[in-house]
């Protein structure tokens, strides 16, 4: 089955075709939700909500952008909305993002466990920045696509990326001794 066929069939209410689309994108959607929410159960719930919402609105997907872009946009917004709801009334989003993660110990003895290392480093970034970095470095999306997904301005995305890159390199340079991690600081 190819993606366009699956989308067309899902539009007609074909659940099997939609399950195929879920299988294709579930890991990335879950990753985005996790990077924003930093809580496994919340991220699982958000992932489920994303796919339910996407199914309900698949008729509105016009094919103007890639399906993944459209889906990640739903994922990003759903996760942010959950994050706001979780902390509603206690903190503003900026404070929330700054304080979104309890300080954690760096993963020890797992220099080869890159996943844990990346997760630990990303957990020290604000939620929005972690999502932007994930789109840019993991999914290898361009700035324009990230702008479409997040609704942020182009310059804002670039600033977030620059800031996140600097912070990630600062965090990671002590943990990747085998490589020359010297940060280029302006």
């Amino acid at each position, binding site marked *: 089955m190819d993606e366009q066929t699956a989308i067309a069939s899902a539009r007609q209410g074909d*659940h099997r075709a*939609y*399950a195929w689309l*879920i*299988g294709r994108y*579930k*890991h*990335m*959607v*879950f*990753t985005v939700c*996790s990077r924003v929410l930093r809580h496994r159960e919340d991220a*699982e719930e958000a*992932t*489920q909500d994303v*796919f*339910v919402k996407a*199914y309900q609105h698949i008729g509105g997907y016009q094919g103007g952008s890639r399906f993944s872009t459209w889906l990640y946009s739903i994922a990003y917004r759903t996760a942010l909305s959950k994050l706001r709801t979780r902390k509603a009334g206690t903190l503003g989003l900026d404070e929330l993002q700054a304080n979104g993660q309890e300080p954690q110990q760096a993963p020890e003895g797992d220099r080869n466990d*890159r*996943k844990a*290392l*990346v*997760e630990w480093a990303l957990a020290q970034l604000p939620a929005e920045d972690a999502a932007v*970095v*994930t789109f840019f*470095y*993991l999914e*290898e999306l361009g700035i324009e696509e990230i*702008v*479409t997904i997040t*609704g*942020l*301005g*182009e*310059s*804002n995305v670039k600033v977030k990326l*620059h800031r996140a*890159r600097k912070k*990630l*390199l600062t965090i*990671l340079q002590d943990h*990747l001794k085998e*490589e*020359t*991690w*010297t*940060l*280029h*600081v302006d």
Partner: protein
Amino acid sequence: MDAPRRLTDTEADRKLRYLFAQAGPLHAPDDIEARVLRHLAAQPAARVIEDKPLIASWIWIAIGTFLLGLIVYSLLAPLSVDPAGSTYQRYLHDLTLPDLGNVLRSPWTIMGLACAAAFLSLEAYLFRPQAVRSGR
């Protein structure tokens, strides 16, 4: 020993991209498809709302047939009206179309057209494709 060289943004991007690729995405629960489909199945089936036209097509056909008949009749009917003819026939032949030039020059027509143009422009402006918001 040489001092370590500073990374350019491109080099840093390349290294981070490599690191992220090695780490890969997080793994979603295996049963997420089943969960979503269960959720979708539990929802009431979407009600299909048909877009019914305000005036049914058979009414349009009837109106069209009537008007066409009227026009054909007025063209084919004899010019001289028999005074003994029906009221309907007399009325039909008394009908005179207004002078189109005068109608178009009327301030009411001009104002009507201007209003229509203004409303159409307003609609086009309000329903234009939205650009991506810049900033929040």
